[in-house]
């Protein structure tokens, strides 16, 4: 996936165009997800496999994000708890 290392994402790297609508994406995985969500009846077996793989990858990233978000929540909560304890 060449667009993976696009510096800041915006308008950099070759676009991946959806053949069914005017959707246009920076990553192949975004295109695969888009086709699976918006044009599910038009998928070939290979495209379906690509959709599943992209979903897998997305799930993995989401799992990591949830952990980070949870850590941030815990940090914010106990941070405020301590600050309140000292300032009241």
């Amino acid at each position, binding site marked *: 996936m060449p667009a993976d290392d696009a510096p800041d994402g915006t*308008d950099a790297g070759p676009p991946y165009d959806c053949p069914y609508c005017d959707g246009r994406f920076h990553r192949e995985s975004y*295109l695969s*997800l888009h086709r699976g969500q918006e044009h599910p009846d038009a998928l070939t077996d290979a495209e379906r496999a690509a959709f599943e793989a992209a979903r897998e990858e*997305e799930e993995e990233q989401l799992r990591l994000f*949830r952990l980070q*978000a949870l850590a*941030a929540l815990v940090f*914010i*909560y106990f941070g405020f708890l301590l600050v309140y304890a000292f300032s009241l």
Partner: protein
Amino acid sequence: MRHERLRTVGAAVLVASLAVALAGRAAAHGGSLQADDARSLAIPLWLFLSTGGGVVGVSFLLTSFVTDRDLIRDIHDRRREVGLSAATRRTLAGVARLVGVVGLVAVLLVGAFGPADPLRNLAVLVVWVGWWAGYTMTTYLVGNSWPALNPWRVGLWLREWLPAPSPSYPARLGSWPAVAGLLGLVWLEVVSPLADDPRLLTGVVLAYTLVTLTGAYVLGETWFERVDPVSRVFAAYGAVAPLYSDDEGRPRARVPGTGLEDEGLARDASDVAFVAALLWVTTYDGLVATPPWRDFASAAVGGGVPAPLLYPAALLAGFGLFLGLYRWAVRRGRRDAESYREPAELARRFAPSLLAIAAGYHVAHYLGYLIELSPALVGALAAPLSPGAPVAVVLPAWFSALALGFVLLGHLAAIWVAHAVAYDLFPSRMQAVRSQYALTAAMVFYTMTSLWIVSRPYAAPPFV
């Protein structure tokens, strides 16, 4: 899969309870600051502000735990018809039109010839308490009934009886006239004793009547769609409400706030600007009544700035700043989400979420005012020409905590709406999350600014 969802929900519930505890503490402290005269904070100001900002940030993190596309879509699509027969609807519309027209005539007559004391004058009480505070609340809590009530729509009838002109409205004007009108009305409200002087108020209502009737006659429906700021305000607030009417005019119900997720609500850049203006004017209203503004105004006028220029200049500058900040956040979010979608399209889709915040601030601003003055309004309605002395209502100390609660609720709704819109726009859920970083940062900044204004003591705006 099932197991994982349960775990996510469990974690979310746990963290939500912590956040509520945190918010509860902050609200309790914030509440005490308006209750006593000195408005002394029970906690240091910086902690009060960062708690407010923290609650918004925590809400964003919690919302991001909802990653089920089907659930988000189901909540948006949960809509049902409200069983009202066509005859009932026609009757209600007729009654509403009658109430609107009688109300307008009463305001004009009593405003011109009634008691000069604003708290005993029907016109002042109906316009500010009944209409701008109370009625506006119904538009976002229930539904936008303004097209039915709006007495100035009789201007449309003129088109049927008289030869109707049909000038083409220049498309590039968009809703910019409504943006200008809204800013103009707020400027007028701030610099003139519009809420204290029944005669002045009557003059303004009369001028508005002439302008609006003429506009409706000349431009027809376009006038209320694009030019009239009042109709635009209620249409915008109505998008928050649970009740709405579909394309055929049948009443329908939806989960409150989810109407803001609809595509096409903000039609172009001018509609985005209108949302920014609506949010900014609530802030501006509070800002000009703070001691820091008083100091700044004195310094500016002392430094040679003409006093009459000060207020419109600040109004426009703040509006530009707001709109600029929003546009920056959208562009930044677009980059973070690696999206090819046009920044203008993203700005249109995310802008309506801010209306939930505007509605939250409106309740916080006007609920106490409405409750305190409704006995006076009832008295004036009962005896328009010689109302008795109004009964004073004293609000309990916890009331301002309730007001802060509405502000928080507005922010929560806005975060949810933006979350749902991002899921609708981007194929990857990580794109959806990343698209919200900059918008959330802007929202945190806005919350802290608003709380800072709220925590300043009142100082009457100078040079007006």
